């Protein structure tokens, strides 16, 4: 049986983490291909429902990453996002949804190496956790 290859969706802001991931590329730092990035203007824009959708569609893990505090391109979008994640994470945890599979991080435009590290450690952590069976098994046909 081939080793489990987790699928990780990354929601990142355009100004820090997306640019940081670009720098990872220009620096030719290699990392695991299991992650795919969706670009947002700001972490403040990221709707919590998208995380649920990602799990529902088969993501095994999620990375959310934006500018460090005080570095937000829009001054405070990341602060709002941080509050949202504090609450959302608490709620998911309370419902038994595996918050270990959601990695939040601040990666600046200068932190190309950090991006590679965030991706690699998340991929490895999720690989250890295995496929997100709970969500895969959940009924979605419904009683018609």
């Amino acid at each position, binding site marked *: 049986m081939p080793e489990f290859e987790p699928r990780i969706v990354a929601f990142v802001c355009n100004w820090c983490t997306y640019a940081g991931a670009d720098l990872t590329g220009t620096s030719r730092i290699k990392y695991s291909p299991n992650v795919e990035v969706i670009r947002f203007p700001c972490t403040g824009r990221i709707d919590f*429902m998208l995380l649920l959708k990602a799990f529902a569609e088969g993501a095994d893990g999620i990375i959310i990453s934006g500018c460090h505090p005080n570095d937000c391109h829009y001054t405070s979008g990341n*602060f709002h996002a*941080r509050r949202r994640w504090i609450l959302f994470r608490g*709620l998911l*945890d*309370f*419902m038994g949804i595996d918050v270990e599979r959601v990695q939040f991080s601040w990666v600046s435009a200068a932190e190309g190496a950090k991006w590679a590290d965030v991706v690699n450690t998340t991929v490895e952590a999720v690989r250890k956790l295995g496929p997100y069976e709970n969500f895969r098994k959940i*009924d979605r046909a419904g009683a018609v």
Partner: protein
Amino acid sequence: MDELRKKARALLEAGEVRVVIGYGGGTGDRARAIFVREPERADELIFDGRCRQNLAIYLTRREVKELGKPAIVATLPALKTVLQLAGEFQIAEGGLVVLAPGADGSLIEFKTFADIEKYLAGAASPIDPAEQAEMDRVRAMSPDERWKYWLGQISRCIKCYACRQACPMCYCPRCTVECNQPQWIPVPSHELGNLEWNVMRAMHLAGRCVDCGDCSRACPVGIPLYLLNRVLIGDIESNFHQRAGMKAEVDYALSTFHPDDRENFIR
């Protein structure tokens, strides 16, 4: 009760309000909401232990709004709802009369939102011991047990949206579940959709829920929705020191922030 009836009659007679939203006797031992528009019907108003429904829900209903300026018989959660609705610009100072009957038959009439704020600042919000026990039980479970618990609850959900209907803060004329571009919540009732609906409902009430408990009581299959609300209420209080329904101005946990908010979960 006499005080309340007297006051309601006087308000209607003087034309100060057009309708008194209060409790009347229902079938069996249940109280139901009644809308008293004529002074002579003021005696139908009751207030006792059966009167639990949060009547503030009617303040944002179009049908009720069209009746004219209301007076509302308010329990503690209803008072909070009034402030929260004011903070969300759904009702305005002077646009309603708030009457809070005490268990002893006394009656407080709040003239201003500020008076309600002052009153609430000193009022305790008792939590039902059985509900607290359930909360403690769920919290003590392992993540996997919690998942099974909630999957069990949610699989019984029939997406009837009674919880939404009963909630005084769910006053949006078009709920996100009715949005189909994109279709955030699947239309049919299945575990995934039910889960998404319930998470969304809880998050949309985060920082706004006044913990009246009407959603749980409305649920025909008995899902303990109050648990979800209270987890968020607790997190908001412990992390941000905010509580919904305590101020008549915007004090929304999710549209404010503090530079030093917790971030021990962020790399």
